[in-house]
């Protein structure tokens, strides 16, 4: 999987989640209002709430796109990502699209190579904390290693599961 494909997969996941949230929100609002005998108002308020949510989601997606587009040279999009680059992509996804906030690094502050990449250090710790990527070996993240296709698929699934759970 190339870096560009990894980003597209992240965006696909974002759209999928946004779609699910949109449907869930619409249904919940409609049910609530209908129960109160306010079908018409329910329809309107659900639509307004949905627009706001979609707007917020779209902003996050735009910021995510903006970040990844300015962070990597064009040529990098055609290559498989390094693990540290994947960490940066997942981290910005978590912040901009999933609305997550950074947490204390915990045990991942002890990764021997976490500071090898000053721009990715926090991203590595944050994605490891959430189980999206994992150290390549005990105590070593191996950020300079290429993220294999299988690792990328697994990470996307883990990201999806993390989002569903949160």
């Amino acid at each position, binding site marked *: 999987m190339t870096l560009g494909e990894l980003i597209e997969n992240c965006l696909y996941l974002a759209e999928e989640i946004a779609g699910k949230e949109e449907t869930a929100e619409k249904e919940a609002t409609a049910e609530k209002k209908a129960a109160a005998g306010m079908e018409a108002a329910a329809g309107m308020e659900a639509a307004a709430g949905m627009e706001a949510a979609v707007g917020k989601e779209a902003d996050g997606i735009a910021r995510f796109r903006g970040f990844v587009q*300015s*962070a990597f*040279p*064009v*040529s990098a999009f055609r290559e498989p990502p390094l693990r540290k680059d994947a960490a940066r992509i997942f981290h910005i996804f978590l912040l901009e699209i999933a609305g997550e*906030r*950074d947490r204390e690094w915990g045990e991942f502050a002890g990764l021997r190579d976490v*500071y090898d990449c000053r*721009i990715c250090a*926090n991203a590595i710790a944050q994605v490891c904390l959430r189980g999206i990527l994992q150290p390549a070996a005990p105590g070593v993240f191996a950020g300079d290693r290429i993220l294999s296709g299988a690792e990328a698929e697994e990470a996307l699934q883990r990201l999806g599961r993390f989002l569903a759970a949160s």
Partner: protein
Amino acid sequence: MKTLKPEKITKDTCFDSFGKGQPLYGKQKGHLPAMGWNSWNAFGSSNTEALTKAMADRIIALGLDKLGYRYMVLDDGCYKPERVDGKLANEEEKFPSGFRALADYLHERGLLFGMYNDVGTNLCAGAAVGTCGHEEVDARSYIDWDVDFLKVDNCYYPFDNATFSRPGNARYVYAPIIRSIRIGAGKKTSAKEGKLTGKVAKRGRDGSVSGLGTFDGTGPKYSPLGVRSSELIFTVTSTKEQETTLTVEYATGKREGVGAWLQAAVNGSLVQDGFLPETAGEDAFANSDPIRIFLKKGTNVIRLMNHRRQENTLQSYARLLKYLRKYAPEKDILYSACEWGKTQPQNWGAKVCDSWRILNDITFRVGRDGDPGHGDWVSGYTNAVTSQYNKAVIMDSFAGLEKGWNDPDMLMVGMGGLNHHQTKTHFAMWCMMNAPLMLGLDLRRVERDDALYRIIANEALIGINQDPLGIQAKRLYCSLCETRPDTAYVRETDRVDILVKPLKDGRFAVSFINLSGKKQEGGYGISAGRIKKVFGEKVSLSGRYEVLDVWTGKTKQVKGEDFTASSLKPYENITRIYTPV
């Protein structure tokens, strides 16, 4: 694509010239530490034109510009990821009006405009717009954009194993393993017979020598003081003046400690400065081609070494400076080297820069709009107030108006993770150490006279930092190291330090700093005699002083020859200015 290679060194950029310290290309000196705001700690790569303008407006609304905070610096994340027609270009989503328009906005308000780049091929956040090989065109862009300050990073550097560079780039900055030398057709002289300088080099069991290069100072492990590089030196006696050859038995590598680039000097003249052919491995020794040398009658000194870690980086910073000076000789652009202490810039920075970072970053958890980011007080690596302080506090001998300033990175005042005393002490430390004062917080979170404001707008502390004498404080007492407190590299933080800083008109500042989380009682002090011994005529010791406590703002008259603090709360500093009366 052209192949990048290190430039030939000159008499002004070679290692042997470092001690002389003359600025290159007429670089202006005499600047006090820079003050302003930098986008990195506040917003990381997500800074925008709108946020920068908002920060500028807050600087003015809070009156911080009147206190000296004038440089508004865009850090990484502001450029398009590729050059446009060979030139740097603004990232249009984030900076839609372009950099010149932003510079104008700032200048119209009496502020100054700072930008960021990198001596490598890419910026640290990834954009492929580093200045390496583009120095001339980039200098013209910066001048067109009316830039007043440049911070230049060191990622993706092609001639060293810097961050994001290939680890194998170490071959540029370390000599091969040396086993022996031979002069002319004479016998081999084993490396065992050579003298080693510095502490980087190591001898193998067979006497061969590796580690001929310069300590990597990015991390906090090593002291910045003393000889930071190693040479292997042979003394050769010649019965006559003669032209002959030097042959070196060597084995190359591509890792920290073992490289392939050899420098050799005979009686101070460089006779070799380049790669030797690669060997099959670090244990597969080969003989170099004979190098032509001249020996004088009597004793000759042959040095085998590699100072390219420092020389390459100096030359890269110098190249951008050259073109800035060429195209705007009248413009005084502050130049901030951000190579993280990797190449021991305290040795060469004065030639080209106004300040030099001394370590890797002070935080790796920078903020973003709505998140203040996170800073730590203590860490095993560089990302803490005390990690930066511990190194900077013993580097006063490198700092000065005609040199430049040690830069322990941007302020973390206002970030999460530091309590009130830690934040105050962080600011006081930076002021005492003549560090650049670059705010790194979202200034919309600051109101006049709130707790953060009272720290960053403390006029007495800013006055200490900006004192016209430009003398970095010296540590005269350290509770963990009482014999050489000014030079001992102490990383344990369960301690109290006392710093003394001469100020204009014979005044001086004394700061009592409790780095620990414990209340420190029993009294800490420094005598007038000790201050006099260290600073001589730079301070006036009259026995009667008007004393200003910089945090309470209260003054009182005192008599005596001792300067003491009876107790210090956890992480507290007591900082006073003594004016002789």
